[in-house]
């Protein structure tokens, strides 16, 4: 059993203002602020009030209080905490499980009083370093904060400019609208006679085409009659018809004689004249004997298979495959008419050739068309201009209402981009727009996220930016990026990492984040107090 342990503490007060030693007696591990609860000549009351124990059971290396308060200087209580004075640096608490565990936790070495661990008092050194770094940060913050004021002013001016411009553009929009309406009338006036003239022309051509079509049909009918009339007796018989199974009216397995007879209008055979009415019924289905052998186009499942497979590869690892994917995606598009079998295409073409092409417009019609086209072009041009104005208005509205921070200090980042090069990639942050990554030595760019929102903690929402919905990860989420902003004199992307697959973390310094330096001064002084 160990007796309760006291220590004499030499406290260094006021690091900058000289050294004065003061003795304050209290049990090991107790902070000054709780000293009054540990009085040697009185029973000790657990700090949660749960129990009274004789004072010699404080720090006797056996846990009596539920809250661990009777063992501030030993590891006996699982939930206790130990106070390190850390003179010269910042005082602090450690879990009492770290007392005498052989590892130096307190810079003043007080946690390892019985473990044999060789600890060095590093408090002064730590204190000096911390002060230096705080000093440095304070300087940066000071300069940064000045720059921030400029940024705020610039943003203010920028906003005013934009608002003025917005008003201007709104005004000019009226002009553009009027112009569009005027040109629309001109266009419509010119299009009416054009339309009539074109319809006339087309009608004439349709009539002419119908005559050609009819002649062609007649010729084909005669040709087919000859083809069907196998025995050349001048009649097409039921038997002759049966050899063309494609004519089966109900398209079932068997093409029966009765069905064939039905096609012939109930008789056994027809001559060339009577064939006229038969032809009307069969011409859609009839396959010429000369074409019957041509193979039907076969769909290969190959594209499908390859497509499935390619999804297995993380596309970033195999850039070549990405291209394949694209091609296949296009292949899959059912609307792509170039995919239709080549045989059909040539047939259509042939038909067109047979019927010839529409003759050119006569001069009068052509003049009307030219005039209408001119009016259309003018109208389109005006409309485009109006759209541009609309876009401009939208962009201005967006910029004017965008959350660039409480005093618009982040506005200067808008439409800027910042790069950072690592051993493998070039990272690019375009604030309020997107984050991307590009391999240093060739290869396509990957979207690491587009602007989402400010995502800092409630008390400091403008300390973190979130970019989301980047390129999807293989078997994972879409890429996203978190940007941590810290105060700096310059606007720089300082580090990038991927702590979790496809979740990027970048550090970014900007004067816009700098706080008013006075608040830092208080931090600087705080740690010198005990």
């Amino acid at each position, binding site marked *: 059993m160990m007796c309760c342990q006291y220590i004499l503490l030499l406290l260094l007060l006021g690091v900058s203002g000289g050294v004065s030693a003061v003795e304050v007696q209290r049990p090991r591990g107790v902070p000054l602020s709780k000293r009054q609860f540990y009085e040697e000549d009185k029973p000790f009351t657990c700090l949660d009030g749960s129990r009274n124990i004789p004072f010699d059971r404080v720090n006797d*290396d*056996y846990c009596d209080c539920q809250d661990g308060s009777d063992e501030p200087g030993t*590891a*006996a209580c*699982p939930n206790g905490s130990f106070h390190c004075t850390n003179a010269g640096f910042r005082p602090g608490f450690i*879990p009492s*499980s*770290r007392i005498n*565990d*052989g*590892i130096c936790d307190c810079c003043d070495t007080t946690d390892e009083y019985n473990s044999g661990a060789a600890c060095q008092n590093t408090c002064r050194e730590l204190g000096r370093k911390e002060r230096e770094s705080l000093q440095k940060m304070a300087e940066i913050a000071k300069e940064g904060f000045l720059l921030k004021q400029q940024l705020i002013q610039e943003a203010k001016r920028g906003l005013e400019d934009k608002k003025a411009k917005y008003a201007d553009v709104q005004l000019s929009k009226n002009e553009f609208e009027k112009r569009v309406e005027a040109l629309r009338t001109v266009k419509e006036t010119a299009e009416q006679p054009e339309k009539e003239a074109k319809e006339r022309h087309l009608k004439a051509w349709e009539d002419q085409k119908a005559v050609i079509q009819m002649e062609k049909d007649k010729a084909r009918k005669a040709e087919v009659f000859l083809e069907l009339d196998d025995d050349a007796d001048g009649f097409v018989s039921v038997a002759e018809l049966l050899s063309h199974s494609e004519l089966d009216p109900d398209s079932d397995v068997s093409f029966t004689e009765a069905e064939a007879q039905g096609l012939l209008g109930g008789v056994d055979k027809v001559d060339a004249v009577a064939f006229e009415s038969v032809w009307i019924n069969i011409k859609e289905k009839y396959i010429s004997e000369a074409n019957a052998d041509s193979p039907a186009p076969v769909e290969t499942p190959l594209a499908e298979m390859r497509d*499935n*497979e390619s*999804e*297995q*590869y*993380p596309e970033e*690892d*195999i850039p*070549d*495959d990405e291209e394949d994917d694209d091609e296949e995606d296009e292949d899959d598009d059912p609307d792509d008419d170039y995919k239709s079998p080549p045989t059909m295409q040539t047939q259509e073409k042939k038909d067109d050739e047979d019927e010839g092409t529409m003759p050119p417009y006569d001069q009068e019609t052509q003049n009307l068309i030219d005039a209408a086209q001119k009016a259309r072009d003018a109208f389109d041009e005006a409309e485009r201009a109006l759209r541009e104005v609309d876009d401009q208005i939208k962009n201005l509205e967006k910029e004017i209402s965008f959350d660039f921070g409480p005093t618009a200090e982040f506005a200067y980042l808008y439409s800027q981009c910042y790069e950072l090069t690592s*051993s493998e990639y070039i990272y690019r942050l375009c604030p309020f727009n997107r984050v991307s990554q590009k391999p240093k030595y060739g290869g396509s760019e990957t979207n690491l996220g587009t602007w989402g929102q400010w995502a800092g903690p409630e008390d400091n929402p403008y300390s973190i930016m979130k970019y989301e919905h980047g390129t999807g*990860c*293989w*078997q*994972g*989420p879409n890429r996203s990026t978190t940007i941590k902003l810290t105060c700096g004199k310059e606007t720089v992307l300082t580090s990038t*990492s*991927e*702590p*979790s*697959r*496809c*979740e990027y973390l970048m550090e970014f310094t900007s004067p816009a984040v700098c706080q008013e330096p006075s608040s830092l001064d208080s931090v600087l002084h705080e740690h010198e107090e005990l």
Partner: protein
Amino acid sequence: MAPVLVLWLAVCLSVTWAVDRGNFKTCDQSAFCKRQRALKPAESPYRALLETMELTNTRLTLQLINDNNKVRLLLELYRLQGNMTRVKINELKPLKPRYEVPDVLIREPPTEPLSLLSQDENGVVLSLGAESQRVIVSARPFRLDIMEGRDVLMSLNSRGLLAFEHLRMQEEEKVEDGMWEETFKSHSDSKPNGPSAVSLDFSLPGVEHVYGIPEHADTLRLKTTDNGDPYRLYNLDVFQYELYNPMALYGAVPVMLAHNAQRTTGIFWLNAAETWVDISSNTAGKVLLHLLTFTDVRWISESGIIDVFIMLGPTPNDVFSQYASLTGTQSFPPLAAVGYHQCRWNYNDQEDVTSVDAGFDEHDIPYDYIWLDIEHTDGKRYFTWDPHKFATPKEMLQGLMDKKRKMVAIVDPHIKVDSNYKIHNEIRSRGFYIKNKDGGDYEGWCWPGSAGYPDFTRADMREWWASMFAYDQYEGSMENLYTWNDMNEPSVFNGPEVTMHKDAVHGAWEHRDVHNLYGFYVQMATAEGLIQRSGGVERPFVLTRAFFAGSQRYGAVWTGDNAAEWEHLKISIPMCLSLGLVGISFCGADVGGFFKSPSTELLVRWYQTGAYQPFFRAHAHLDTPRREPWLFGPENTALIREAVRQRYALLPYWYQQFYHAHRTGQPIMRPLWVEYPQDPATFALDDEFLIGRDLLVHPVTEEGARGVTAYLPGKGEVWFDVQTFQKHNGAQNLYIPVTMSSIPVFQRGGSIIPKKIRVRRASSCMMHDPYTLYVALNPQGKLYIDDGHTFNYEKKEFIHRRLSFTNNILSSVNLAPDAQFTTQSWIERIVILGASKPSTVTLKTAGEWP
């Protein structure tokens, strides 16, 4: 390069979240299995030639003849010390030697004399010594029956399924499909030795429950296989394995236990080739009178010989010690390895390691090991470090050492073919690579691209490999760096079934003969390396994925690449229980699940379960979001912290269990039936388990659970809830309401459990801390203490005491009076469960220890 890359990606990265069964053979697709399984029970063509019998002091030999083809076999029968019988069958005069598995048995098993009881023209009867046990060798047809009194304990070849494909010349007889060549998918197996399979059936009268033959993702109690494939034993890297089926997984231990309320027996089929095990039962789907039940088991292996050890129990613990006497016991790990392990594929760089390490301190969660997966290397060249991400490994290791923590780095057996890589050059120049069938170095695809596979079956290769772990060879290594052997099935991305071609060559033998041994040898050589680097002082820690019988001697195993699903959490229990039954106690599953991302609830429940399984490591796939314990809000951090702290508080108990397993071969994580062998209610339980004898754990493995029903065994026994100390009677199903913080754990009445309730940030920080004894009336318990990491316990530097509490006196007896060890620890607290408040307490000290 692109096409090959595509090939292996296609093998190992399928989009679906389930195994691609088409990548792995069914029995029908494995020519010898199909051939053997086509044989149906019938009268055996084998006849024992009694006139050839020779009985010496140590063995009986006898020739068997196959009346169909006149090929003769040689039967050897041994009675082994410790109530075992060994049956060996080989060809009498094989064309060339057949493979007999070396290095798995820890020694040639000592024999005991067999004596002849009677003999006539029908057979012979031999005495097995103890308890009127006899072996009856019947001549026509040949069969063996092992009897005790009037009971048949086990019969061999009673269904006539003994089959021994003799080695032959190809032109000798008609060639069936798959005898001299077979193909699977695009792979061809040249089979220069032709058919060589062996098979034998075992009948187990009165047995309804059989266990073991890991590794399968299946229930503890093995199922009958009549309506599907047999259980397969063939070490394979199975991508996203499916649950509840007999497919082969990463490791193979050909040991089966048979149990009923009267007796436990075991069968150890010592064969390292691809093996299938059929189980059938006459009770499947029927209700029969108990005495009439029986289970039939049939083993089929592709090559080698029949070498079977029949362990006759009669108790479960007898079987464990019998098996341990053959293949050794669980290695005694360093204490730290019993703590918590934090792993991920991958901790990206040194900074990442530092910040994760700091995270544990910040959130006050203890851990002992942080792990590095394959990305830590320089281009998947093992024994090296990525020059940018891990530029100063010793600095990193020193940082961990300053916190009394350790690291594990992966070393896989596939070696990048790269003439600028020292390890490759040495292996190639020494001729240590496995050869392909044409005599060149075998090359396959794995993580580094083209890779060679060292021939670990060679003792000289293993010796060289071990020497590579010396601190001056393995640059950047330090004494707190340990090793993880993954992919040692071996995994070959472009090989048949993602493993090596069977016609690859290991000296005189084919890969076919040695396949299931490869991972065993890799871990053996690695563990030897870690021992040697410390001059034989420090205990090694090596984790392996592939394993075989005897692997328990070299370290820990885990259940491979599981998934973040509730069903995978559940299956971790029967998978580790099955391994424990066959000697491999140091087992765990990836906490959280390797593939996919767990819900917070699943992650917490997995920590709670893993904290009570022997090997406790969290691991995650490269593509999953980070999941260090503090990333799920303060509430869940607290739940995980509590689970890990429970583990650390119980480390004295765990450590004593490991010592016990090391000494006896008894499993640490045990099915209930092992301790309650006469209670049929325990026989199929695999949602709860015991740690040692004294702790019963029923983890919560259901999503949204409000309660669990635990079976507390033991008529007349009591169990104490370790949280509330509430007492419950044994032999009942107990409903326990649960919240997210509940881990239902019970201490057996009559036990003393030592804990250290001052949980610190790593196990070695707790070295000198005092003990708290949890005394559950009226108890006995043990306490084991040593330095926690060296082999000095073998030099009797330890404390081992039995604690007992009788007549209101807690006393302790030194179990090892000749051992010496000094500890600074003391007993700070004794918690007595189930007693009323004493009026006085007296402390008496006799000698140095109370």
